């Protein structure tokens, strides 16, 4: 498993060696491929592309699209923007936290779920909204969200 990961990282980085200004694209590709950016990858990028580790860390920690800690298989993003908030987003977030047993910003130990709080998903009329693995779920109730999350958890891995 580990060696397969290492191989994957090497393969991705090698495509970018010698290309200027490609750091963000490279990091995004690693993020897509592994669902996070491991230290090992940061170290290797630094060596192969001759970019200081601190610079890679700066970029990777800046973008919410990149994660420096492992992320779960299912990404649950609960909107707490103004419109969703007045429609009870805090209760929805509560329900998600209780169902998954993690706080916003955390990843469950079995690496199944990552829960995030986001500011606006851009469809306020559907509030309260949550985005789960890129799919939007609108007009949520506690019950509705709990059902979806339980279904995801029971899915075969």
């Amino acid at each position: 498993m580990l060696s397969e990961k290492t191989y994957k990282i090497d393969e991705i980085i090698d495509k970018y060696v010698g290309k200027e200004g490609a750091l963000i694209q490279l990091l995004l590709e690693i993020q897509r491929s592994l669902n996070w950016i491991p230290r090992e990858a940061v170290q290797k990028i630094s060596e192969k592309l001759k970019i200081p580790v601190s610079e890679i860390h700066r970029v990777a920690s800046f973008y919410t699209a990149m994660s420096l800690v492992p992320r779960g298989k299912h990404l649950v993003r609960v909107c707490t923007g103004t419109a969703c908030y007045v429609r009870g987003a805090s209760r929805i977030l509560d329900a998600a936290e209780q169902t998954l047993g993690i706080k916003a910003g955390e990843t469950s130990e079995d690496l199944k779920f990552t829960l995030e709080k986001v500011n606006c998903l851009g469809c306020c009329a559907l509030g309260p909204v949550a985005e789960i693995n890129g799919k939007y779920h609108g007009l949520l109730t506690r019950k509705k969200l709990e059902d979806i999350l339980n279904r995801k958890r029971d899915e075969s891995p």
Partner: protein
Amino acid sequence: MVANETGAKNGKDVTLIIDGIKTQAKEGTFILEVARQIGIQIPTLCYNKALSPFGACRICCVDITDARGRNRIVTSCNYPAEEGLIVETKSEKVLKIRRKLLEFLLARTPKVARIRNLARIYGVENTGLWVENEDEDCILCGLCVRVCNELIGVSAINFAKRGVKREITTPYNEFSDDCMGCGACAMICPTGSKRVRTHTYSTLKPLTGPKDEDLGVCLDVFSAKSSIEGQDGGVATALLISGLQNGLFDTAIVVQRTEGYQAEAVAAENVDEIMKAKGTKYLRVKMVPKIKELINAGKTKIAVVGPPCQARAARKIEQALKEDFPNLEITIIGLFCFESFDYNKLKAETDRLIGVDLDKAGKTQIRKGKFSLKIDGNEYSCRVKDLKNAIEKGCPYCSDFPALYADVSVGAVGSAEGFSTVIVRTERGKKLLENVSLTKGDFNKDEVVKLCTLKRDRAKTNFAPLVEGIHMARLQEKAV
């Protein structure tokens, strides 16, 4: 990015008016610089002439009207002079903005004296804004980031995260692998922030004991050799073996060659492994990752052998972790060092200057200004001076020749061939020497002092533009 001192292009002269004074400047020179030249002081917190401008603090804002009559507020530290520009640095509009900015800064760092003073100059005594963290002392001006990246070339610290969570930190907020403890970040910081002191190696508690002006804290100093055939007198190797056998530490981090002349830090736990690492490699090998790894693995008695920068790092880690790991003891054997080299560049230079392959070298040595290497019994050499293109980034800014923070420092300088100079600095160092049998030789202190002075003076010269920039900024504030 290379620091662009003033922004000036090799272009034409332009005429502009600053606070009613007509002046000429090279096109592209930053307004702040032009103003300085005619004695108009604009306050700034994030500008240093030796580094590229950043426009972070916004305090240097001025009111400009360009040749086409367009009026706006810009930061003068990074706005280039252009023909027909009319600049107001003290208009009521500018002062109002500056006061507001200072209110923001006061809310960010309410306790920092420099910010308070500057605010007071502008009549801002208190901030009406929400104070998130009373003890915050970083204004995110980025001077430390720029100095470490542009001037020192090490890039140990940088920004991380974004928005309200943005901060200055080392990667992963851990002890830096790259910092060499030159102190530039702490020196340039306008607020004396702890953020550049936490995981870097420039601010250490000094060792205590009798102090020599040049050699540092020194309980004993002499010249000696062991029975081991090492670099010079084989003292470092003998100390490691003795320490290991007498239980002063159970693991020693040493530098071993890997491929060719390349080298890496390894954890040695027995005599064989230590013997494999003997002989100096004139490269900067990062020891911190190994130190962190061993501490995480639960080791508490560790020895580290390395040049002054690595000795500083090891000492800082020991000091900083004292509370969390009270049993942690890092025995530090420091090596005299004037500079180290970058492997790839050194390989290219030895090929160019001597025509030999560095990777084939057996023992390498720097003695009396000569870098020599042995290949199959033949000795080749060149002047160390000629290797200046291969010097590792940051070394010219280091002022520590005799490894001031080590328990014992060892080096060739000050001893005859085949002997090493040994400086014992701490009780731990003294204990380490107790069980080692050494043959003493003649010690020549003047040779060591000469190199200590040379290295200090070099760092001082290299730091001069930076220091001047810091000085200028302070003067400007006073003159406002």
